[in-house]
């Protein structure tokens, strides 16, 4: 069977492997194939993606931050923050955040679940989904928001008081789970039937 290396793209001929063997690239020494690799990958991807999906509602609906400034309190969730931005007229910012922190991450998680677990689509269709997921994944920037929170906390800590809400835990876990899921995912599993 011919397989290309994920890392450097060199095409190898991979002979059938025994259970205790693995194939590595002759040029860059990265892993090309492992027996049952696609099976374990599928299970892990599915588990991590489902975990991320379970945490997603808690991360966006529960209050994530509470700001106290001179006795004025303001508590907001991610969805609430987007609504606030929309109501205050910042239409563009609201749309950007809605798209890149809410909609695209959700699509990516759902796509991962579909590819690794549900298998409800035809093989060709799944390849199409995979291509799109690769493109969309670059724009799904949940992790950037964690960084933004950190920057805000450091820069504004003298002026206002911060209290993080319960959603922060869910949010951080959700980000890690969707990243783990993407790492576990092996695209070969789409085409290789066991």
């Amino acid at each position, binding site marked *: 069977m011919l397989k290309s290396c994920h890392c450097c793209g060199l095409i190898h001929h991979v002979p059938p492997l025994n259970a205790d063997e693995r194939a590595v690239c002759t040029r860059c020494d990265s892993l090309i194939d492992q027996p049952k690799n696609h099976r374990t990958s599928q299970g892990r991807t599915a588990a991590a993606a489902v975990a991320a999906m379970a945490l997603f509602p808690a991360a966006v609906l529960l209050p994530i931050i509470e700001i106290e400034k001179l006795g004025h309190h303001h508590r907001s969730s991610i969805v609430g923050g987007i609504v606030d931005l929309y109501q205050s007229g910042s239409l563009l910012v609201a749309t950007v955040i809605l798209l890149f922190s809410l909609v695209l991450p959700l699509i990516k998680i759902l796509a991962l679940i579909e590819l690794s677990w549900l298998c409800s689509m035809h093989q060709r269709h799944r390849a199409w989904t995979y291509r799109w997921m690769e493109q969309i994944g670059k724009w799904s920037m949940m992790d950037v928001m964690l960084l933004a929170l950190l920057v805000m906390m450091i820069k504004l800590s003298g002026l206002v008081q911060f209290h993080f809400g319960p*959603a922060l835990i869910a949010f951080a876990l959700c980000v890690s789970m969707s990243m783990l899921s993407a790492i576990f995912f092996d695209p070969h599993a789409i085409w290789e039937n066991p």
Partner: protein
Amino acid sequence: MSDPSSNSDGTNTFPAATIKSISKVSAEFRSRVWWLTLLCVLISLGLFWAAYQGKGEMIIIDFSDSFGLKPEDRLKFHGVEIGAVEKIELNGLRDGVSVHVRLTHQARSMAAEGARFWIVRPVLSLDSIQGLDTILGAKYLAIDPAPSGAKPASRFQGLDTPPIVTPPEGSLEITLDANTRGGLENNAPILYRGFRIGSVVQVGFATDARTVQARCAIAPEYRDLVRRNSKFWNRSGWRLDVGLTGIKLDADTLSQMITGGIEVATPTDADRNVSTGHRFKLYDKAEPEWSNWQPSLAHGEAWHRIALKMPQPIRLAVRWQERSFGFRKNQQRLGWCLPLDDGRILCLQEQIAAPASAIADSLLVELAGLSLPASKLTIPTSVPAVTGGTRPATASRFSIADSLPAEVTRWPVGLLGAKLPSEVCDVFLAHPDAANVLAIDAARITIQESGWQIDDLLMIDRDYHGIPVVSAATSQVIGLLNIAKNGRFIVTLE
């Protein structure tokens, strides 16, 4: 009987069952990561559960104006947050606003029938500045909780102004009658020697509108300063006297000019205490002699602590006869003695001894309705039988042959101070009538060789001769009062 699995021509027509791997799906998805998934699901559910569990009950408070209150402002009690405003909307009649407040769980019982709510906002007046924290910061709701056991309610009518401060428990509430209001405001101070001892709770008409009534509350620790013959007068506003010598402006403090104030004075011969509900007349101005009154009134925490366990001295009279120009002449000396629970009686030595000039065996001691000749007294041998000379007065204990009546209270020997403390302290002169108990401040006492001397300027009636002296600090009897020609002394018990 033929085999049911075979038909007549002997061929087997049953279909072969499809063989499937039992764990095909599960093998594909078997992964330890699913434990992580389970954990994440539990965390997610837990967070949602915690978020909705923490939400308390919602109450609605109606106000005529929101005074700048915003959602997420707090409901505070004694400065502690017990709830948050969730939303504010116009009420159905458009004559006010409805404030929806989410209470925390522990605050639920506070919001019952009778609870009062108001919006704390800055109030600036010449008298006082209130709600200073709300000038820059957020407004907040304050609550005066319902009495315990009240029926729970979820809709309240908010107050536009903070409620009238309810006087603390144990306050003395009195009513003053005045002809005119004279500038009196709610919360105006009641002053004793310029010191605030209470405040006006409410000023209003009498029911027949013939007078103005001021409901006043005297703080619990100062209630003993007000007696039946106390005088109250209005110190509101200011008085300007323009004369040949110049202009004289009479006003105590700026705040008194604004809100007014009531001064109270108690005569030197103070009457009994008053009880709540007593009425006094409020004079327009003070008589000149009122400012000269200087009663020594027991008051404050130390007095309250020991007021109920003061010693109860009884009257003691000693009579004797003297020969003067050939006539027998009756002499007597009056004073006090303190029966002790060991059967003996504590008094000044001179109260049970006659002077050297007395006719022998003419001594007679009277107490508690008993009249006892010297033979019936058992006096310690160390005490000289005669008085006089320059010897300092001493205390002594004697016992009597007859027993005292049962109703006489006896003072425990354990509560006698062996000697005077090394430092002067605040003391009470323990007159059996609580209204006549005199308080002597440590500042009025000096230590002398023969005991503690009390300032000569202090008015103490001669009637107090021999009365027990109680220490305010330890509530022990530490000495007896001796009123001598050269001053008033507290004599040690030794």
